[in-house]
């Protein structure tokens, strides 16, 4: 098979190439490519148009298949058609394609984790920490650092909220802090407003799209003088910005992060695609991975367990 591997070319298209998460996926996909000796073509496609060009581009290069994390799941039929037109095998990662009717395209092999599930894990982590600190639900405010322009972001925060509510959190204690951009500064500014508008609330929890968003809320709490034991922030991702937080000499309000493993997503999808092309072994239609909560004291172990590092 190794002679064949020389000619095997697999694309790996991601929606936000600058994000550490996707960088990691690529890194692990590269690892698979090295092991099996195929060529991996990495392309970033921030929107539907770039994605379509990227698929054409792969076709032109003579690739046989690709793995994609799409900028939007509704692109489903278009991606399928484009892949077929270019005679490329298709597999999705992270986000599952849906058809015009909003139902998942079950024919396309997929590996991922549902955004709502991650959100729920965050919510659960917050609830656990609240219990550990002995907080009562009705004396606590929640900052929902939101970026509603991105459907995944909505699903994640809604997942967290559902768990909070199930544990007695009142809807009127959840405050929206819409960030204008997805960086920490924007989250910081938005969260500051919420904190200042409700100066009477002394205990806060926060969740959002990713680690950066939650970090913004934690920084905001620090800047208005709320001590580290007055806020619980749980992020999503587990990349450097979260790890930096755990490495700080003193504990901060950033309590934990739900790490999702870029290793499985990157390495295994690339490998599956290779097997499909080289050995005609079709991957499972649906593989769901799990997130794992990492905290200050156990993040190294959690990362090792997930195959990162």
């Amino acid at each position, binding site marked *: 098979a190794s002679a064949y591997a020389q000619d095997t070319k697999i694309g790996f298209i991601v929606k936000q190439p600058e994000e550490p998460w996707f960088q990691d996926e690529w890194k692990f996909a590269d690892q698979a490519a090295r092991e099996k000796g195929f060529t991996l073509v*990495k392309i970033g496609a921030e929107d*539907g*148009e770039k994605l379509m060009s990227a698929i054409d581009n792969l076709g032109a290069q003579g690739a046989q298949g690709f793995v994609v994390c799409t900028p*939007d799941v509704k692109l489903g039929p278009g991606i399928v058609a484009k892949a077929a037109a270019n005679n490329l095998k298709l597999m999705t990662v992270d986000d599952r394609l849906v058809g015009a009717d909003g139902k998942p395209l079950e024919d396309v092999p997929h590996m991922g984790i549902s955004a709502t599930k991650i959100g729920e894990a965050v919510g659960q982590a917050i609830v656990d920490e609240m219990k550990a600190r002995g907080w009562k639900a009705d004396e606590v405010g929640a900052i929902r650092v939101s970026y509603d*322009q*991105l459907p995944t972001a909505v699903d994640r925060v809604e997942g967290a909220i559902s768990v909070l509510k199930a544990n007695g959190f009142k809807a009127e204690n959840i405050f929206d802090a819409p960030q204008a951009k997805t960086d920490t500064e924007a989250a910081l500014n938005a969260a500051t407003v919420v904190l200042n508008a409700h100066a009477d609330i002394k205990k806060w929890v926060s969740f959002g799209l990713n680690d950066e968003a939650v970090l913004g809320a934690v920084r905001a709490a620090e800047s208005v003088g709320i001590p580290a034991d007055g806020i619980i922030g749980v992020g999503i991702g587990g990349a450097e910005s979260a790890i930096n937080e755990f490495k700080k000499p003193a504990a901060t309000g950033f309590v934990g992060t739900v790490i999702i493993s870029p290793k499985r997503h990157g390495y295994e999808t690339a490998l599956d695609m290779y097997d499909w092309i080289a050995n005609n072994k079709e991957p499972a239609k649906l593989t769901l991975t799990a997130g794992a909560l990492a905290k200050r004291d156990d993040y190294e172990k959690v990362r090792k367990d997930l195959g990162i590092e």
Partner: protein
Amino acid sequence: MTDQLKKILLGEQGLVVIFIVAFALVSLLVPNFLTDRNMLGLLQSVVTVGIVACTMMFCLAARDFDLSVGSIVAFAGMVAVMASNTTGSILLGLIAAIACGAVVGWVNGVVIAKFRINALITTLATMQIVRGFALISSDGRAVGINSPDFYQLALSKLLGIPTPIWVLAVLFAIFGFVLNSTVFGKNTLAIGGNPEASRLAGVNVDRTRIWIFTLQGVVCGIAGILLASRITSGQPNAAVGLELSVISACVLGGVSLAGGRATMSGVIVGVLIMGIAENAMNLLNIPAFYQYIVRGVILLLAVLLDNLRSSALGRR
């Protein structure tokens, strides 16, 4: 011999000549570049930028500025999809999308020309407002297309070439003609070259500017429809940052931001340079972070080369 060469390079079409040389180089050096499939893919990838650049050229030539194009493209795409889903008629969807584009463009034009509000601020404002509409109307989520016929807009082919590329070519031809051979085109250049003189010469400056923005809206509508068809859904987040790509393509193509200077051939070259750079980088498998640097350097080189050319020409 060298004299003749110099003459060609320094002539009106010098930019085109430079482009052809660069194209030949890329074809030689980048594997898989000069294949039918890649050429078609390349052309399809510049359809949106190219279409919008047609009217952005007019906008810049008249010393104006339009930042709202990306939002209009996204909004028009949404409208096309939603309207044809609701009415069941694709044609109605297309008309609705173009009409929406035209209305937004017209509003831009009226605010800028009649209320004399700075074009940058006005279009920055409509950029936000229209994006807001697109997000609100769909609750921030993509809207799928019901009728598969809609996909055919982008997938169908004529003589082996996909329809969007034909549309692009036709628009290039139309707007090239409009710029050079019609009263509207000359008035646009005159307004950009010397607004005061144009006004005193009896050119209806306000009306011309309103028309330019309205046309810009219509053209964005067309781009939005084709985009929605290509990506088989209306997406409220589509075409973010399109304005900068389009403006760069125009400036690369020799359109002056100080107004009064524009050629269609230049703009076509500008659009293609940008498309080729992206395409070749992906073919060469340049890592994402380095792509930023390469993109920047190509931009600089392209303008520098054109500058050398025109300063050899003795102009300031």
